């Protein structure tokens, strides 16, 4: 298994600022494997197989960068986050944090590293102890790591609560007295307490109401700018991941199938799965929805304890069907290869994806090009159905969001505004 980035030779960088003299990444993951044993029997439990949650995954994150990890439930994306923080002991592979191999770290070494890597969890209801006050929750990391004490610590906690937009006087309240969005702010404050370098955010907004999600996204962006944080942002919602990430890795069944700069991935996805995933995300605009080409994948995600041979996506692949079901997809496992500058794809036939109507129409923005690709897509077979959801009215007017960002005075500023 070749890692998609040879860490010494090709340093990772966001697409915009590619350079051969980039510093060493903050985090490097090499050929990570995380298997969970399946046992059978009551008294004598026999090892009968493994759930291969993560099966040979490589990733690197530069300091100050946000890398998005997307995929459907069960693809192993949360396991990657937990293995990086060493909440699990990886089955194989290496996790390197600032040049230090922490894969087998124990005791005080591990504790010292964990101080610099923190996590924000999905469920702000389950991830806060209901019997501790907000201040108690936020000061716990300080206690565990013996940072400050007494009045100084109390002041630090008040500062942290203010930083995440909570009233410091609410510190003596319990989690149930806060709304979902406020609770997630407490979770963010706890993650910030030890001045970490890396924050793994595992679906941090998916449990929140739609009108609250933007508040937390803006908060995370604002904090990144203020404290120079590095994020691994794990989520299933591609719209959110696109918004917040510099680079994105798409996972399918324990492996990365495509990795690219955020903009590049959305404009020119090259893996058939990435194209299908993007095409399935609804866009709140009936005119665009009407002209998009939606790829309906058949069936469900296969069982990760017994993944398909060769390319793991071949059982559901729309492109393979169009190409007349080549045997190579079943026999040979595709490796991640560089297709364009810093755009890696694990598909034998990624060249065939480029320029198809499916790829061009993925976000519905690039009209015009669709007509040329139309003919090619007609014989696409059953997997591709160009669902015509167009209301007959044709929707002449479209609200085009302003091209130049005109942020109001109030909320947190965008990272790139201050640069």
């Amino acid at each position: 298994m070749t890692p998609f980035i040879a860490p010494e030779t090709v340093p990772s960088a966001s697409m915009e600022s590619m350079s051969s003299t980039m510093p060493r990444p903050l985090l490097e993951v090499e050929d990570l494997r995380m298997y969970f044993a399946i046992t059978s029997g009551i008294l004598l439990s026999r090892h009968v197989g493994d759930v291969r949650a993560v099966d040979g995954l490589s990733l690197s994150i530069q300091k100050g960068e946000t890398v998005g990890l997307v995929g459907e439930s069960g693809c192993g994306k949360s396991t990657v986050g937990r293995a990086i923080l060493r909440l699990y002991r990886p089955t194989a592979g290496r996790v390197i944090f600032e040049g230090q191999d922490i894969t087998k770290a124990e005791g005080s070494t591990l504790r010292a590293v964990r101080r610099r890597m923190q996590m924000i969890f999905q469920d702000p209801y389950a991830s806060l102890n209901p019997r501790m006050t907000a201040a108690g929750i936020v000061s716990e990391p300080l206690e565990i790591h013996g940072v400050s004490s007494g009045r100084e610590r109390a002041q630090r906690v008040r500062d942290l609560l203010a930083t995440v937009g909570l009233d410091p006087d609410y510190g003596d309240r319990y989690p149930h007295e806060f709304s979902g969005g406020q609770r997630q702010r407490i979770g963010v404050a706890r993650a910030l307490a030890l001045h970490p370098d890396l924050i793994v955010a595992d679906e941090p907004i998916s449990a929140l109401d739609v009108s609250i999600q933007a508040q937390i996204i803006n908060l995370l962006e604002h904090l990144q700018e203020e404290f120079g944080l590095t994020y691994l942002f794990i989520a299933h919602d591609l719209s959110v991941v696109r918004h917040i990430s510099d680079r994105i890795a798409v996972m399918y069944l324990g492996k990365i199938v495509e990795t690219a700069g955020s903009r590049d991935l959305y404009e020119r996805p090259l893996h058939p799965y990435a194209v299908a995933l993007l095409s399935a995300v609804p866009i709140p605009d009936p005119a665009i929805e009407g002209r998009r080409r939606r790829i309906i994948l058949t069936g469900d995600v296969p069982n990760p304890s017994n993944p398909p041979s060769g390319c793991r996506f071949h059982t559901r692949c729309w492109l393979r069907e169009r190409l007349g079901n080549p045997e190579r997809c079943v026999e040979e496992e595709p490796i991640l290869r560089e297709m364009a500058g810093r755009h890696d794809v694990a598909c034998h036939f990624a060249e065939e994806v480029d320029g198809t109507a499916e790829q061009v129409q993925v976000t519905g923005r690039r009209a015009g090009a669709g007509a040329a690709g139309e003919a090619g897509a007609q014989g696409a077979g059953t997997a591709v159905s160009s669902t015509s959801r167009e209301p007959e009215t044709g929707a002449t007017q479209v609200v085009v969001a302003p091209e130049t960002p005109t942020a109001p005075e109030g909320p947190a500023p965008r990272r790139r505004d201050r640069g």
Partner: protein
Amino acid sequence: MPLLSVRDLVVRFRTHDGTVYAVNGVSFDLDEGETLGLVGESGCGKSVTNLAVMRLLPAPAGRIEGGRVYFEDEDLIALDESEMRDLRGKEIAMIFQDPMTSLNPVLTIEEQMVETIKAHKKVTAKEARARAVELLTMVGIAQPEGRLRDFPHQFSGGMRQRVMIAMALALQPKLLIADEPTTALDVTIQAQVLELLSRLAADHGTAVILITHDLGVVAGMTRRINVMYAGFVVESATTPELFAGPSHPYTVGLLHSMPRLDAQPGEPLIPIEGTPPDLRFAPTGCPFAPRCAWRVDRCWTEMPSLDPIGATTEVITTGPEATHRSACWNRPTAAEAAAGRPLREGFVPAAQPVEAAR
């Protein structure tokens, strides 16, 4: 004559913590074969409205305290329980968010489907079974004969939702209420289920009420949309009109606070500040006022009615010509809706009057 007509529906819950004002005077109509989206976040009353239509509110806490629900001219609120039971499933069917909890885990799919069919139609068990096979085939489940003997846990989430759709359409209802049918599903499975739902509804001429918090889902699936907030319908329009010219600050806020797949890089999100209101307090004024950037003094004390936009006096409530209406004292202009914030020189949202502060 619309298929369904809800008039001034008021639903309250009596709980230990006091009265919850869940639905506060909701009216809407639905034609045969029409698809209507009900959009709003959790607690806005969109699910409760439809549970009230189905007369499935949790008793004794939930009560319909006012209003009328007409289905094909019949007042559903006046029906007794046995008449209502005849109607459910046969005339109005419902699909819920979580297919695992809405299927019985200890019965096979066959037992559940046959039970549904036999409850409403005089058919033999064999005929009912044949119909079940036909329905599973229709929703794209392979080897339907064999799968009928399986239990719900042997199906994946997407397949369970297909089974739910098959059961909902078993008796060819005139109205299908789908309450967040794809929220528990992955995005690729969501696409499968939505495609199936819209195709089947169109084939059978079934009217659909699609309840969701996802504006993207309703954009592709519905012809008309009601946006709800805190138990009120705050905006009502045909789908193209709602997205082209949102005219309630909450709708504008929703559209600007969600990242879009097709957004320009660096486009900022404009969040809706604050949190949804506590429904244990009787609404005074517009419930969105505390979070609204357009609020004026009147918003704190008086709830505006759902009025047409522009000079129209005649209101069309259904179909592609439906009148665009919103409940707002200070509607955002088209430019403001596009920008996501008020653009008027020197405009400051009105402060909460002292006497109204709790």
